[in-house]
């Protein structure tokens, strides 16, 4: 379960988020859509604690995250797949995955089991396990990034534009993989610019514009893609 209650956040004196609220039930998959620079990544960073809150609350599985350092949030079931698909480039794929389990490094048996589970989910990574992460293709790096997050055994997973800069075929693979994560019982927040993908897999959509939630709807309410696109591109004025 993830809940943002009226959060305000920004960088230095610049406020980027002006009261963002959203709620994802356990096992829910919510998509947050919006154009460039509208505050999507900032929202995810605020949830992780990488950007400090100026006001509002972030609640994960009923627990208020205030005062908890980003380093401690992995241990509380929160994980982010960052926008740039960043990885530890000079380390092997397998070492990258292990680092995801750093906060429970004493649990050797559990780590071995989870590593196999990630390899089953992404067989490509198993083939490339000894390769330095810096040598991977974009799609492989996205899989590695998701795999590293899974190694932390999250209950809430945040994904920042996982489809960006990937070929359509790979995007489909990643979408499949994200759907697969629902079966693990994860609560998922998916930030996307790819509206088609979000409509395919999410059960609820939020549109963010200028650091505010401009629109919110359940998928399957007969929402038309064109209508959403209009919101997304800023054609509608806030109601």
């Amino acid at each position, binding site marked *: 379960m993830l809940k943002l209650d009226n959060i305000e956040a920004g960088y230095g004196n610049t406020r980027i988020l002006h009261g963002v609220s959203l709620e994802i039930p356990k096992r829910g998959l919510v998509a947050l859509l919006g154009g460039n620079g509208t505050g999507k990544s900032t929202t995810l960073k605020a949830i*992780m604690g*990488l950007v400090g809150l100026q006001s509002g609350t972030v609640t994960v599985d009923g627990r208020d995250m205030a005062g908890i*350092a*980003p*380093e*401690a*949030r*992995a*241990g509380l079931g929160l*994980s*982010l797949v*960052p926008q740039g698909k*960043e*990885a*530890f*480039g*000079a*380390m092997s794929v397998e*070492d990258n995955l*292990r*680092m*995801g389990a*750093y*906060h429970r*490094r004493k649990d050797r048996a559990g780590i071995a089991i989870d590593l196999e589970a990630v390899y089953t989910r992404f067989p490509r990574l198993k083939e490339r396990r000894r390769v*330095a*992460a*810096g040598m991977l293709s974009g799609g492989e790096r996205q899989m590695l990034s998701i795999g*590293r997050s899974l190694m*932390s055994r999250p209950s809430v997973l945040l994904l920042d534009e996982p489809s960006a800069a990937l070929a359509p075929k790979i995007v489909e693979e990643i979408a499949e993989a994200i759907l697969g994560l629902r079966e693990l019982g994860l609560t998922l927040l998916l930030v996307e610019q790819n509206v088609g993908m979000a409509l395919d897999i999410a059960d609820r959509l939020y549109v963010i514009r200028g650091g505010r939630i401009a629109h919110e709807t359940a998928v399957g309410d007969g929402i038309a893609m064109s209508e959403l696109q209009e919101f997304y591109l800023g054609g509608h004025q806030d109601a």
Partner: protein
Amino acid sequence: MDLFLQYLANGIVVGSSYVLVAVGLTLIFGILGIVNFAHGEFYMLGGFAGIGLATVLGLPLIVSLLGVVAFAALLGFLAEQILNRQVKDKDPTNSIVSSFGLAVVLQNAALLVIGPQPMLLRTDLSMVPVEIGPVYLPLQRALIPVAMIVLVGALHLLLRYTWVGMSLRAMAQQPTVARMCGIRVSRVAIVTFMTGAVFAGVAGFLMSSVFMVHPLIGNMIVLKAFTVVILGGMGSVTGAAAAGLMLGIVESMTSAYLGNGLRDIVGFLMVVIVLLAWPQGIFGRKLERS
């Protein structure tokens, strides 16, 4: 030819001490982005601590060595509190100014407490000769490259195969992702500073039988170590190891064949040439940062 080999051996001995000092300097820079001008003082204080333990207290060498390790680790811990903890906003110029200040404070403290007269470590081992073909070294000196190989080898294994070492490399490569994995910056910083200080302190102790130790020796040592770090590529441990040995050997050959006056200049000439030809250092920066 025989003399050449002797000069080579001398160069390897001195170069090994450069490696030990430079490795810590390059780790602190590569992982924390801190330029530590007080690094030479770890060397100086390690040397004095060792002489104190071995000559004044008369402890066995191996016990003195362990004492130096513990003392240097404490120094590293305290330096981290001052250079990293206090100057948290990570503007690289902050650490330059504060570490320079720390260096001056430590030098003057040593002048006050120990005094200006240089000291040399004399032990029974200096009487034990090691002869390899035409090369002659007192055992005390021959042990310096051995200690360097053991320490750098251990560091390599630590960085590659332990959680602590991996957390250091992770922090060097992707600090934000490392934090999200649960790695605490403060812990990494303490381990990095303690490791760097121990390596430099041990070098100071080992070299106190070769060169006189005095309160200002850190100035020269830190310049040599910076030369090595630049030649080897900022942040690269393997680069520092290779460049440290190279600098030691080149200096030894220079003073033997071209005159002792050029000894301390040749390193800086190399830096200028290398920076013009390979701005990333001869060995690139490939290990720590991707």
